[in-house]
């Protein structure tokens, strides 16, 4: 866990599925293996976005609670 975060995106207050779409668009600007950090709301966002990312072949590497939001670091899939 020493990789640098290439991009950060605050999706606090952004509803499903727009939060996932924005995450996906941000990932498209990165290279495979790069790390993106997204800030997601607790609840629905945390239920849906990580799972959708997994289904698209990306990988969550770290989740940190920030109160009522979470910092989610995702590694872009191949």
């Amino acid at each position, binding site marked *: 866990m020493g990789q640098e975060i290439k991009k950060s995106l605050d999706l606090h207050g952004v509803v499903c599925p727009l939060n996932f779409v924005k995450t996906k668009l941000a990932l498209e600007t990165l290279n495979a293996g790069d790390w993106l950090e997204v800030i997601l709301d607790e609840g629905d966002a*945390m239920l849906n976005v*990580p799972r959708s990312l997994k289904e698209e072949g990306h990988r*969550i590497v770290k989740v940190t609670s920030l109160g009522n939001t979470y910092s989610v670091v995702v590694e872009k899939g191949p």
Partner: protein
Amino acid sequence: MAQSDLDLAALKKVGMIQQKQKDYFALRLHAVGGDFTAEQLRKIAEVAEKYGKGQIHVSTRQGMEIHFVHYTHLENARLELEQAGIAMGACGPRVRIVVACPGESTCRWGIIDTKKIAKRLDQAYFRQDTPHKFKMGVTGCPHNCAKATENDLGVMGGILPAWKRESCIGCDLCVSSCPVGAISRVDGEYRLDESKCIYCSICTSNCPTDAWYPRKKGYIVWIGGTMGKIPRLGTQLKKLIENEDELFKTIDKVIRYYQTHGRKRERFGHMIERIGEEKVKEDLLNGAGD
């Protein structure tokens, strides 16, 4: 035939319900898990136009009702529906049509084949006499979209997760996304508090490396749920029954128990309150069940 010759109780039994406009009836149709073919829907529409006022009502149990059928047309309407493979529903003190979500057939959360279970329940119990109405619901997972816990008998799919150290990257997503806080991290190891776990599969579905995996998959049985005048959520009778035949053995016991011990017009859940939850559970799980 005069209106006074009608046997209203017999009609109710087959889902023909007298409206407050006394010459007219609602035709409640049979359904399982709210599934109809386009062809069936066309037939229902045709009958509604021919014998009713073209008015169809969607019931809370995923069924259809054709309203405003004049009593002189009841038999013809029924015959025409039955010839097209659409059976009549049920009303009164008996087992009603079975509600189900689509389950694993289309839903990404679905853990069990809800349609198969619903069909088997329907074939075994539909229209059987019970002390009061008896409703069954089958839901694919603990998201509980088909509201298994609001039915007299509910079947719910579930998984028991387990964690394997060698695949884990320690991202903490499981801790953050478990809806009931059943997962914690202690000394670098993830632990599941099984007494809190609701078997929902969110951890196993989300886990980026499948370090959380389904160790057990099965059916959870809920009894005595009801809405209505005196609402009561279902009591969990048994969790994660892995075998379909064992599930049906349990259900059989439940229904026979209600048929034996329920008082007239007493819903199953209220019977459980009267007898005592612990006693009922003991009888159903360990007793002869009658």
